[in-house]
């Protein structure tokens, strides 16, 4: 903030002292006016429910009554109960695996489209969005058909004589959840990686080549570090929502594939303990946020690069 000393030519005008945001530029107010409708909307639709969940997590459920005295017993229970710990840990582990698998699969696809897509880039990107033309629920059911005991995978493997009896480790467990989530989130990972690879100046790759690097070194020393912003974005886009995924573990996870969101749903529903469910939800949010922040900090040297 600039400090101005009043002088004869430049007296401090009275209204200047009343400024709400002293450092705001002249255009600031019109900018604020411009963003206020979406701002109000997100305040209403995002911040308000969050605040409600947060409040709820500090209250207590006594059968039909809601005790509104602030307490942290829900959090204590959420943190100490073995079942919740297991579910929370499993959710994080599954999401981390999903994120790694998704990004590893998405990277070569994004790389291929960015470098070899030629004039057909738009078509490739369109093809990638095709899974979204059907609802998520239908895709989950399709995976059930593909991975099931009498499903497509087992049917073909049996038919070709590769296996004697149907594989059971691919459905109703964490593997099925990973496969389905990785497929569902792949496009969201491909797009940011594609964008960051496309933005790499091709003359940088030529410069690396000119300075003696073969294809692999060129990739490791130039392409990969410069596409890290896309990788970080893709990881966050996949990791954050999958921790709280509810449908996939419910339909494909069996009992050892259940995740924290399923427990939250139980608390809000059958168990009739919304405060505990809220505490679990807030805890999950805090954990996801902490992991994301640590992840971003670990990658900060790649993120500050200006193209």
């Amino acid at each position, binding site marked *: 903030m600039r400090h101005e000393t009043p002088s004869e030519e430049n007296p401090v005008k009275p209204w200047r002292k009343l400024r709400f945001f002293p450092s705001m530029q002249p255009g600031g107010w019109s900018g604020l006016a411009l963003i206020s409708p979406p701002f109000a909307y997100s305040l209403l639709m995002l911040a308000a429910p969050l605040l409600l969940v947060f409040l709820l997590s500090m209250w207590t459920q006594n059968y039909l009554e809601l005790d509104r005295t602030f307490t942290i017993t829900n959090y204590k229970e959420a943190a100490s109960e073995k079942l919740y710990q297991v579910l929370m840990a499993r959710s994080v582990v599954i999401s981390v695996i999903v994120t790694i698998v998704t990004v590893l699969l998405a990277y070569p696809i994004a790389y291929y489209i960015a470098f070899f897509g030629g004039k057909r880039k738009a078509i490739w990107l369109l093809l990638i969005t095709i899974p979204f033309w059907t609802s998520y629920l239908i895709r989950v059911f399709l995976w059930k058909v593909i991975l099931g005991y009498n499903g497509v995978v087992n049917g073909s493997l049996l038919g070709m004589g590769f296996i004697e009896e149907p594989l059971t480790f691919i459905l109703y467990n964490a593997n099925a959840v990973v496969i389905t989530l990785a497929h569902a989130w792949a496009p969201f990972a491909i797009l940011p990686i594609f964008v960051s690879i496309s933005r790499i*100046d091709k*003359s*940088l790759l*030529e*410069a*690396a*080549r*000119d*300075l*003696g*690097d*073969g294809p692999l*070194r060129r990739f490791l*020393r*130039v392409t990969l*570090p*410069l596409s890290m912003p896309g990788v970080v974005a893709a990881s966050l886009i996949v990791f954050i929502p999958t921790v709280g995924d509810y449908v996939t573990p419910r339909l494909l996870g069996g009992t050892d594939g259940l995740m924290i969101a399923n427990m939250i749903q139980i608390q809000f529903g059958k168990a009739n303990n919304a405060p505990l469910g809220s505490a679990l939800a807030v805890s999950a949010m805090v954990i996801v946020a902490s992991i994301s922040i640590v992840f971003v900090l670990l990658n900060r*040297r*790649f993120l500050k*690069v*200006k*193209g």
Partner: protein
Amino acid sequence: MKRPQKTNKQIINIKGVEKQFGDVTALNGVSLTIKEGEFFSLLGPSGCGKTTLLRMISGFDSPNLGSVYIDGSDMTNVPPNQRPTNMVFQSYAIFPHLNVAENVGYGLKKQKLPKDEIKLRVEEALALVDLEGYGAREAHALSGGQRQRVALARALIMKPKVLLLDEPLSALDKKLRETMQGELRKLQRTVGITFVLVTHDQEEALTMSDRIAVMFDGKIAQLDTPEGLYKRPKTKRVASFIGVMNFIPAKVIASTKTKLSLDVEALGKVDVGASDTIKSGEKITVGIRPEMLTILYEETDDADNVFSGIIVSASYYGDMTYYEVELGNTAIRATVSMRNTAGRPVLRAGTETRIGWGYESITVLDG
């Protein structure tokens, strides 16, 4: 990093190189040799194939026909990372995720040198381009001129046999460009490495190079020293690309073993050096540079030849004035440049003057 200065050894030998991109012919039979330690320029208008030729030498493109030899070995099918050449890119291609020292040391890392030696050589290279102490600077915090120096240091640290520069100065403003021209020339003399520079700026090529290849339409139109190109351009096109030239039609009166006798329009009869290709009776074009024509301000001023003219227009450039002059009683117009020395007036349009010129200032042009 000092190396032996110019020898007569050939370092680059390009033989009959052709290159097509689809139906565009970028190079149409280019052959040339570049000598070791030479500052060589490829000069030509946009799209004439300069960059393509440079990329043939660096290995980023391969010819459809012909071959490229560097230091005696056939490099036609050798990839860029295995050629003894390094490139300064037009955009400089500074790695944005690395700092200055990491950029400059990039190519050394692969050579498994001890850390201390890399550090030492990076400092040496930075000192060479006047960037001592900039090692820790982030790439995005550099000015255009500094980026250019980093790109130079990064290429020179590899001790290439040939340094290739694709319009390295075109992104800089005029003042900085002129400073860098001098520095680049000085740097080339210090390191003694062969420089091949691509440019479309004739002034840049003239001031920096030992030899220049002028290219048009994928072919080399003329290869000569800067002085040779300026004084003895072979064609009208080369003549008008390098500086300003007045073109005047002429008729060949006689072509003998010793001389060519011409009747130049408006200027009269002139004898010039003999030519094998030009025959008696042929109609040709001769060129004369603006500075070879002199306005005779005083009655007493004299020259080999004098004719009268009328000034059509005058353009004042500070140090020089360019006059458009209509040559005595003809429709031919010529540009005359005069240095604005003390006491010399700038003449107005419509003034009648006497103009003097010397026989040796006439250049015979093909086509």
